[in-house]
């Protein structure tokens, strides 16, 4: 038996129930050293649950697992890590008030008699980060980092000690292509060293590039495992969603007749020291305006300033009238909606019901007489959004925190669709969303645009930006370096502006 045929980790007939919810029904998996094994499935199919079972966060309800031919049933993450498994979690599991270095080295700090050697700790973390080629400052407090940088820290943490099996649960969901490239380089090196890698992602191109084996799961059930050479994107999608999909980026729809062409939003000279500088653009009804840039280029900050959550100099006009938003309520009243990028912190109340989350930004719309909530209308509206976005849940009263990552993202989207905004800001709207749902979201974006909603779309996924946007503003270092449209809208040009090689 050659090394590559050896199974390092296997699981058979694994079941996992969360109360009445059957997250996994009959999972099967064989992972081999030096190969990237991708798990593919829709949102809520059970991928993260599978990984959490592997690293001892949840015990399986039933089933057998083996590691190196030995029975394997980790009771907690420590045991899993001692047995040689490492994981980069989908939902960030970092401590905001500690530094990057302290997070990366958490629980295996260089220490003697329990005393931590801080110098060594920072050195080791800095070395690790440098070796990995990650652009993060190890002394920064994690709470001050952007979501993308936190994801890089999470990756560094997962790689901070050697492992036989490395699990990456949607590591690229908030990375832009250039950071993703760094990660792919790392993966290649680990592969060469014989590390087995379990990889989860919803980005099909990436999957086809990286994977050696691909396991498809659907509704918690094992569907099939294919070698990458023996399959195609189309087939995988069909296996995953149970039907054929021809296109991912739906074509633009005819705009409704009588749409005004006057800009609905005009931004000029928007500046906030240290974050962004002289941001100027305008936005017309029905337009999809993309914002592209590398991590930390300041796009999210601009959007939160537009939404009244940050003070900034400069002028914002809505329908030609100058406005000054003191808070998000003002912005919402002016018809702006904002799908934020960090769903856990800014998007959702994890401990509240789905219904409560979906109506959160549209409370005024469900206010009846004397401040009473109109529960019937709220339920009907929430239900409509749940169905439109195919959010996987069995009740509107489910707590948002128990949904899978991608479904949580859809809830945030639903919440803002419900406000019927005239200007919708989307910050990484498809972060962690599966292909089928992505298509659905794109279709909705198109639909909204055709009805006259103006859309500002921040995305780090270049294909997504190119596939949807009419115009793209490219940000680098807090400034808009170019705005391109039409035939200029090519991947090469956009990347060149983003990285600063073209000015």
């Amino acid at each position, binding site marked *: 038996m050659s090394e590559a045929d050896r199974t390092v980790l296997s699981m058979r007939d694994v079941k996992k129930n969360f*109360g009445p919810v059957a997250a996994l029904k009959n999972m099967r998996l064989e992972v081999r050293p030096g190969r990237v094994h991708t798990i593919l499935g829709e949102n809520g199919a059970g991928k993260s649950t599978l990984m959490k079972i592997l690293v001892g966060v949840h015990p399986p309800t039933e089933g057998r697992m083996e590691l190196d031919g030995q029975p394997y049933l980790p009771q907690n993450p420590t045991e899993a890590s001692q047995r040689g498994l490492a994981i980069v979690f989908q939902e960030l599991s970092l401590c905001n008030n500690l530094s990057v270095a302290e997070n990366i080295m958490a629980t295996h700090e260089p220490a003697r008699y329990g005393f931590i050697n801080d110098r060594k700790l920072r050195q080791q973390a800095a070395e690790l980060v440098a070796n990995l080629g990650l652009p993060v400052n190890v002394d920064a407090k994690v709470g001050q980092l952007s979501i993308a940088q936190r994801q890089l820290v999470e990756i560094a943490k997962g790689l901070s000690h050697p492992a036989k099996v490395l699990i990456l649960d949607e590591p690229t969901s908030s990375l832009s292509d250039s950071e993703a490239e760094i990660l792919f380089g790392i993966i290649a090196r680990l592969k060469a060293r014989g590390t087995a890698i379990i990889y989860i992602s919803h980005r099909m191109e990436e999957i086809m590039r990286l994977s050696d084996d691909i396991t498809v799961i659907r*509704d918690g059930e094992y569907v099939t495992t294919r070698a990458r050479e023996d399959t195609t994107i189309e087939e995988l999608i069909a296996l995953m969603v149970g039907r054929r999909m021809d296109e991912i980026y739906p074509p633009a729809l005819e705009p409704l007749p009588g749409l005004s062409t006057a800009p609905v939003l005009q931004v000029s000279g928007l500046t906030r020291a240290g974050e962004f500088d002289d941001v100027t653009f305008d936005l017309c009804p029905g337009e999809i305006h993309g914002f592209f840039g590398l991590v930390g280029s300041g796009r999210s900050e601009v959007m939160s300033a537009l*939404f009244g*959550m940050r003070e900034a100099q400069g002028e914002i006009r809505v329908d030609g009238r100058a406005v000054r938003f003191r*808070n*998000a*309520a003002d*912005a*919402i*009243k002016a018809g702006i909606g*904002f799908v*934020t990028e960090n769903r856990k*912190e*800014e*998007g*959702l*109340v*994890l*401990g*509240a019901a789905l*219904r*409560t989350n979906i109506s*959160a*930004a549209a*409370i*005024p719309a*469900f*206010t009846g007489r*004397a*401040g*009473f*909530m109109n*529960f*019937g209308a709220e*339920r*009907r509206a*929430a*239900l409509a959004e*749940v*169905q439109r976005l*195919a*959010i*996987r*849940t*069995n*009740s*509107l*009263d489910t707590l948002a925190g128990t949904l899978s990552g991608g479904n949580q993202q859809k809830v945030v989207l639903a*919440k803002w669709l419900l406000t019927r905004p005239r200007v919708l800001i989307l910050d990484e709207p498809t972060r962690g969303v599966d292909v089928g749902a992505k298509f659905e979201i794109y279709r909705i974006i198109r639909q909204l645009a055709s009805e006259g909603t103006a859309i500002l779309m921040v995305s780090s996924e270049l294909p997504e930006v190119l596939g949807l946007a009419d115009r793209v503003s490219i940000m680098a270092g807090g400034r808009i370096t170019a705005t391109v449209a039409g035939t200029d809208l090519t991947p090469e040009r956009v990347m060149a502006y983003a990285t600063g090689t073209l000015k």
Partner: protein
Amino acid sequence: MTQTPDPITASQGHRLRALMLQYGGILLALVLLCVIFTALNGRFMTVANLTNILQQVAVVAIAAFGMTWVILLGEIDLSIGSIIAVAGMVGALALGFGFVPALLLTLAAGALMGAINGVLTAKLMLPSFIVTVATMGIYRGLVSLPTNGAPAMIADPAWLAIGAGTFLGLPIIIWIVLVLFVFNHILLSRTTFGRRTYLTGGNREAALYSGIKVDRLKIAIFTLSGVMAAVAGILLSSRLYSAQTNAGMSYELDAIAAAVLGGTSLAGGVGTMVGTLIGALIIGVMNNGMNMLSVPYFYQLIVKGLVILIAVWLDVRAKQRRA
């Protein structure tokens, strides 16, 4: 994929079951207590005694309603004991202007003290724990100034009737508790104000992004808590025929305990008025029942602690089962 059942009938049909599921543990604790006390003392389960319990629990229950709001926001209000005392004193002194002016002045004083807590917490962004520890001292100091620490007697018959009178055969004080319970319950569970409170307590950042004016809400809720404490202070001073400068001392702990017993999470975002009422009743039944059984004071302390532990444990277990 989405096996969403019809949401409207779902919520209506399982109403009662949902109630049992939600409060099963804590209700069980309350019922157990009552059964035990009834078995041990025949006079426990009499109308007179149950009325007694409700009257005795009134002050803490009303304060706990206000506290529930504050805790739901993820904040805390330790000053309510002192506000109770100040309210009584303001009432006693203002009764010179007549009953209605005194009532209004007292409620206004409660609102003002609550609003100060709220403004300091929301606008200066100080932790509410430390703000209300500070105002707890300040208000307690203030209450003692007019009489130099002595109590102020109350003779106004209308004021005294609040604590001693009856209406339709039920003590007025119980009516007040019921009305305030219904008011707070509806405000919390049926209005947008309540909804905003849950959202903000659950995730302040997300609430801000959803367009909720968190600062205003916070001030409103601390004000509400102050008003509830003022009502509690009115009842207390009426029951005691006097305003005591050390009235309400450490009632904040009882109020918090009632809320937490009733399932309110100190992290914010989770809790109900029904739970708080049950929590307050548990505390009241326990105090009364042990008095009826002549349990010596120190043993009462111990038993009370044990009962609280068992009640929360029953509740936590019931909730785990459900999940």
